[in-house]
């Protein structure tokens, strides 16, 4: 005999789970690491984020550095009971503009653009946020 589901209790549990998880600890500062990079020197940036995947000279006294972080396979593949199911391969590319050796601009770009997940860019610069 099937046990009937208690619908009011199920709704309350779902609401609590999603409601509690929706709390935003950082308020409006959605990407604290992205903000924290502004003004850092090239040396400080490399010290906390590591070597970029590419670096090139820009106009005048500017330089452009690219970082990339691919999402973990934990997000990109589901291990079903007999075989895996592939999910979307995705990542985030961070482009940093240095002006006179200091970070003047930071851009996050999800890849592919149809799969927004800029948190992976934040992961690159986790260690750049002052405690």
């Amino acid at each position: 005999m099937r046990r009937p589901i208690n619908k009011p209790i199920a709704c309350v549990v779902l609401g609590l789970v999603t409601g509690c998880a929706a709390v935003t600890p950082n308020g409006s500062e959605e990407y604290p690491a992205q903000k924290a990079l502004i003004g850092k020197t090239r040396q400080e940036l490399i010290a906390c984020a590591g070597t970029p995947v590419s670096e090139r000279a820009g106009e005048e006294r500017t330089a452009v550095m690219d970082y990339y972080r691919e999402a973990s396979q934990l997000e990109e593949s589901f291990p079903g009971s007999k075989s895996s199911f592939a999910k979307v391969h995705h990542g985030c590319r961070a482009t940093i503009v240095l002006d006179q050796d200091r970070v003047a601009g930071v851009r996050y770009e999800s890849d592919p653009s149809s799969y927004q997940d800029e948190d992976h860019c934040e992961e690159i610069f986790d260690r750049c946020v002052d405690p």
Partner: protein
Amino acid sequence: MPRKTTFSAHCIPACLLTGFVLVAGTWGGGRDAHALEKYGRPLPEFEKSDGDTSKQGFDESLIAGYFLAAAFVSNPTFAARPDNTGLVGMRYMAHLETDLYKKYLTAYTDQNFFSDREKGWIILTEWDQTYGMTGTVDHWSWRAQYERDAPLDKSGLIQAYADGLVNYRVRSHEDWSWWQKTFPKNTLTAYAGLGWLYYNQTYFARPDNTGRALFRYVGHVDLNLYKQQVVFYGDFNMFTDRTASNVVRPSELDWILGIAVRWQDYEVSFYREQDMPLDRGGLIQEYWAVQLRYAFDVQKQAR
């Protein structure tokens, strides 16, 4: 006494999920992607960098994958061999993949092993091998794979098939603005799809090893509860029977519900699976498991 299972009782939620994903995705699919986040001064070089060789080559894995070990902490009926003998104690799996052409074409393999708790948990009793290709284009993904499930500790029944499968994906942050406004930190990702086992030598259509599978209907949902570090997930997989009078009517439903906690390259998950017949009574295979997964990814160097 075997539990009687009806199509209407178990198929309706799965069919509703499939329909919901497809309809909702089509309805919201035309919405533009979000604007990029910017801080600091404009990035003129970036704006014109499409096609710039400096952008290419970041996102290609040389080889990536994961290893997992799962303990079936409670397993009354989930069999440890393709002939439905034994009861699984442990599961071990290796998944390897490589991007052949960006995200459009990826080759992968799964090597999956089971042990029998009735033979001391250690000796491996089943080896499931999968070889396939997969890819993604926008909201769509596809795959073609060959799977062969064989006993390891003795000779016996081998189940094998080749299939093709197409999925359509929706994601709350791109496709449902109302979800993003309500739950800005809780991404919901779901896909649903249809597969065809175009080659099927011996892959059964029910958990009691009857019939032969023809089509499969799949669906999956991930609810990100906290920064992709706590994820609730659900998965279903249905087969139809090519020997039945109605070859599109599902004959088996396999469902999984679980919760995963991730830290760096590790994941611990706790989940339940139940494989049940839909068009008649019969054997239901089910278990509860705790699983540890370790992922790795070796990136190609930027060109």
